């Protein structure tokens, strides 16, 4: 792993993540015919939260203050394992897609514990729902990854990206399309988007992800929000560079190719954000017990994808 690539990707992660969620908020506002907060508003929020004091519940133990750092660091680390601009991700040696899923699960584990710690009913409710829905989403995610890993013959993300990149026909074969659909539904569930969870809600009883953050303040809240946006960026990148590794720079690419690859990556990212915004604007939040039906539909899609890997070629 070369240090400059690592540092560059780290900076890219830190700076790009809030921008992506800011852009999504802004575009959602635009689609609601209002000007909405500027895309870089999220930076201001994060900067303000970092500066503010913190109020910690008297019932909370050390786990409460430990959780934000775990969420933030695991998100960052998964970001370094996913090829964003350069095919062999900086830390691809340290973990493939299974490690990425595992680290995200570790972050979610401590996020849920952080929700439970201050003894508030909302936190408990959020943790319970978050763990439930992510558990239901996991098989679909794993099966989609399995499908792609089987066709690429490896769980190493760089290998997957390379193999889908090389065979151009690969993009249109049914296995990929079905796996892409399943993965998209799981992406919406994991990042807490509209069909499963509403990020902008004020009504605590409908929250899933937000309910766990109700007790956090100051820099803890900043790290939690930042971690969540980095996790969203990581999942989107995983989604993009596994299914559309178009324009991803090869291993030995020069500065020019890297720049081009960065632009391609940003373009793809904006396209995916647009898709997410459209889904969020035109859908209503599903009732909690309808969400598993959506996720089991994703699981069926992933199974079909798996079937079609060897039925059609």
């Amino acid at each position: 792993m070369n240090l400059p690539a690592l540092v560059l990707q780290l900076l890219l992660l830190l700076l790009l993540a809030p921008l992506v969620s800011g852009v999504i908020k802004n575009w959602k506002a635009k689609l609601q015919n209002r000007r909405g907060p500027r895309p870089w508003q999220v930076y201001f929020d994060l900067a303000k939260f970092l500066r503010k004091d913190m109020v910690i519940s008297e019932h909370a133990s050390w786990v409460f203050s430990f959780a934000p750092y775990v969420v933030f660091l695991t998100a960052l680390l998964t970001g370094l394992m996913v090829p964003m601009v350069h095919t062999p991700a900086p830390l691809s040696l340290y973990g493939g897609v299974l490690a990425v899923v595992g680290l995200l699960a570790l972050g979610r584990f401590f996020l849920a514990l952080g929700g439970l710690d201050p003894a508030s009913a909302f936190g408990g409710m959020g943790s319970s729902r978050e763990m439930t829905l992510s558990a239901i989403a996991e098989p679909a995610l794993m099966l989609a990854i399995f499908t792609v890993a089987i066709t690429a013959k490896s769980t190493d993300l760089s290998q997957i990206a390379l193999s889908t990149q090389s065979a151009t026909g690969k993009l249109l074969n049914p296995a990929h399309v079905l796996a892409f659909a399943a993965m998209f539904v799981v992406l919406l569930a994991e990042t807490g988007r509209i069909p499963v969870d509403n990020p902008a809600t004020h009504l605590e009883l409908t929250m899933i992800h937000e309910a766990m953050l109700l007790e956090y303040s100051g820099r803890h809240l900043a790290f939690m929000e930042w971690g969540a946006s980095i996790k969203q960026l990581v999942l989107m990148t995983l989604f993009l560079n596994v299914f559309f590794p178009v324009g991803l720079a090869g291993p030995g690419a020069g500065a020019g190719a890297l720049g081009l690859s960065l632009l391609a990556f940003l373009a793809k990212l904006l396209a995916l954000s647009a898709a997410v915004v459209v889904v969020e604007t035109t859908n209503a939040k599903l009732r909690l017990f309808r969400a598993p039906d959506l996720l089991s539909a994703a699981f069926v899609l992933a199974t079909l994808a798996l079937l079609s890997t060897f039925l059609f070629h």
Partner: protein
Amino acid sequence: MNAFPATLLIFALGAYVAGIAGALLFQRAERLANGIGFGLAAVGGFCGVLACASALATGAVTASQSFELFPSLIPFVRFSIHADALGCFFGMIVSLLGWALSIYSLGYARGYYGRKNVGVFGAGFNLLLLATTLVFLADHALFFLIAWEIMALTAYSLVSFEHEQEETRNAGVLFFVMSHLGTGCLILGFLLLFQASGSYGFDSFHALGNTLPAGRRNVVFLLFLIGFGVKAGMVPLHIWLPAAHPVAPSNVSALMSGVIVKTGIYGLTRVGFDFLGTPPNWWGVTVLTIGTISAVLGVLYALMEHDLKRLLAYHSIENIGIILMGLGAALMFRHSGHPVLASLALIAGLYHTLNHAVFKALLFLGAGAVLHATHTRNMEDMGGLAKRMRWTALFFLVGAVAISALPPLNGFVSEWLTYQSLLQGFGTTTRLIRLMFPLSGAMLALTGALAAACFVKAFGITFLAQPRSNPARHAHEAPFPMLLGQGILTAACVFLGLFPTLFLKLFDPLTQQLTGQQLSQQLTTANGLVLSGGGAQGGTVSTLGITLMLLCLLPVPLGLWLLFARRSRTRIAPTWDCGLRGLTPQMEYTATGFSKPLRMIFKALFRPRREVQREYDFSPYFATTLRFESHVEEVFQTRIYRPLRWLVLRASRRTRALQAGSIQAYLIYIFVTLLALLLFAL
């Protein structure tokens, strides 16, 4: 086996025997009995670990022969042990746990002073360790069965050690009956093998499967599958496990969940790989299917529990399922002729056996410490223990992270290896059966995620938030030996998680013996830092790398903290309660509440039933007392075991008519049978 490990192993067994004798001798002096009993057990365990580990590491285990412990007075039985690679590996597990649990028991047994006979408790514990070690090392079928029976009986006596409660007695009887059903099948299986090989020695059974006719071989396999399956706690035969483990004293339930359950796995491995030669495909498929079902059902039922130890017992079923998935996949690979993949799947299964033994024992010890402090197993009455029992909470958290297969601890490593073997298994055949691999991989993912949910519940509801009862409010930290016991296992968890490549060398003699492959070179790259899934296709992961990188990334948040928030202060305030008069402990989330969404989603499986009784004086809207009760139907109990029991009772009621009560009737029966035999003899 060369000198050093052999003598050390004998010394370990001797220590156990001395422990039994010492504990029984000094029954009167409780403190002394406790010290000697568990002290010697700890010494025995430690020596056992050294012996087995060094034997495996130096490869001396391949040169080991079987030798007789003591001359046998009874014909047909030869008390001989043979520490081959498989036996040594499992011997290492039982000794490691024996060592840690004995240290823990030094503190735990203090709870029994004045109440129960600590001498007997110590002696039973030592005998259980001795019997289990002998089960792993036995080289002669009858000696194996004797050790197996001693283990079952000691386990029964220790399970019903606190026989005052009704629940304990019932669980003990259920355990007794089920384990003896299993032993019955084992005896039949060994007899069939004896019939084929002519002698009871294990060396004569080696690769016997190839000579056996197919029908006979399948029968033998099924018998051993049921026999060892009962002890391992596979799904259809698991009902005794969640009943027996919680009622046992915590160190015993830790030993049972950690090791006694593994004797089933040891048996299946010994029979599946050593005795019965290359298996037909349906064996592997069955074991893989049973493993998957056990894993998913185990974790689903664990989620519905609010008794901490029953929850952990159900998790034993889940992890046994995961181990069986590894073994099943290995069997399928051996059938389809892929020795490398077979060894990879076998390593995955057995590495998870070691990991599960360590973190399950750690969790049970944690549960024991909590029980010791709050005198209850019900999670609804706990809460807020993290601030009162700091170290136990930390150790329980490490155990929880390990069992939920989260990086960088050992649960993740073994599940990662299982994923790798399942993934690469897809390419081994072209028949439709290969679909099983990714589907069971998806089910493994579901299990892992549900396990994480379950342990957020287990740790969160027990240790975090406010205490929900007075015992929990006045809980105190466990005494030092208990913490030391947990500490050793925590260190083992972390070490097994961060340095998997070191432990893979221990598997070389094992896989060499069972599948004829040595994989430790292929599985480690970048000079031992990174674990690879074997060959070019396998992905790579390095838990050590992940941990180091997490530490290297620490300056990012710390830098942000210094840059922005140097002057920010932290204030402690009551939790935000929407402006009401303050949050009472009753308002917190409880275990039942936490698992409510999953109970609704898996309604078809659980068939939840809830009753609300409301008593009121004048108007129904002002209830004086409110009673809420919710049950999850034990499907296996009601759908399989209860009808089975009803059939047996009906049949036996019908045959009772034979017992007419008159002597004449009985004499007639004897006379008629006598005549029948005589006529038949003509």
